[in-house]
């Protein structure tokens, strides 16, 4: 049996040079967002209401990790009541290499009935192992996971 393949597409239109030009990003498969603007200035300086590739990766990693953690907790017999996951992606200029994504830091807070601090931390570590995006990013950047158990009764 063939493995199910999941395909998702996004479209970008860019006009002008990199310093003064601007782009728009559309979630082509889902239509969940359309024509979200980005510029070089919003990428490396103040976001000024515009997104950037790094912010989209932060959203992707937070989303990937969250579903992975939800799955691990369910497998452990303690499904989450609520998970709050924040991801911060850092891009830095590395000498001789140029701009590089150097870190992805995950902070995961969970209200999980029947779990405890140690079990939640263990599920978070397993979620990191199971999240395909964690594995990819780890090849070139540091991935850190901070798990904060917030009870669950």
């Amino acid at each position, binding site marked *: 049996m063939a*493995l*199910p*393949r*999941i*395909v*998702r*597409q*996004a*479209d*970008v*239109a*860019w*006009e*002008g*040079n*990199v310093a003064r030009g601007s*782009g728009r990003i559309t979630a082509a*498969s*889902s239509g*969940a*967002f359309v024509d*979200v603007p980005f510029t070089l200035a919003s990428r490396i300086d103040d*976001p000024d*209401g*515009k*997104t*950037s*590739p790094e*912010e*989209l*990766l932060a*959203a*992707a*990693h*937070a989303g*990937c990790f*969250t*579903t992975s953690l*939800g799955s691990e907790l*369910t497998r452990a017999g303690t*499904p*989450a*009541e*609520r*998970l*709050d*996951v924040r*991801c911060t*992606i*850092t*891009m830095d200029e590395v000498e001789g290499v140029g*701009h*590089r994504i*150097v870190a992805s830091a995950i902070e995961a807070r969970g209200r999980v009935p029947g779990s405890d601090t140690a079990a939640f931390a263990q599920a978070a570590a397993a979620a990191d192992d199971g999240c*395909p*995006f964690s594995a*990819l*990013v780890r*090849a070139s*950047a540091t991935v850190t996971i901070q798990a904060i158990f917030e009870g669950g009764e």
Partner: protein
Amino acid sequence: MATERRAQVTWTGSLLEGSGTIHEVGSGAFGPLDVSWSSRAEAPDGKTSPEELIAAAHAACFSMALSGGLARAGTPPERLETSATVTFVPGEGITRIHLTVEGIVPAIDETAFTAAAEGARAACPVSKALAGVPEITLHARLAKA
């Protein structure tokens, strides 16, 4: 100088029946966006997914790198249209990213444009971060102006 960008997701319930929201990104440029397992693994049904966000990040990063490379070569683009398609196999991970770009670039030929696109694919920080993806393919062509 390091640049930080963040996003926050809230999830309630189990993986298969629960649902999540990307309810806050640092810039405020989009959201809240709903996510769920079924919209990730089956039909999107209007919801985004980590794979679609990775496609968006890669298409955006590649477009900027290509614009920068073309300008450095003395042929800045008028317009670039990029698509990124991410293929994800559950249990295996992201197996392929396919980039397509169509450019309106004055005073350039197809060979130089393709070379610039190859350079952008190699140089953009998202490509480097996703270097572990087994296959990143690229199709570049000039649009009829």
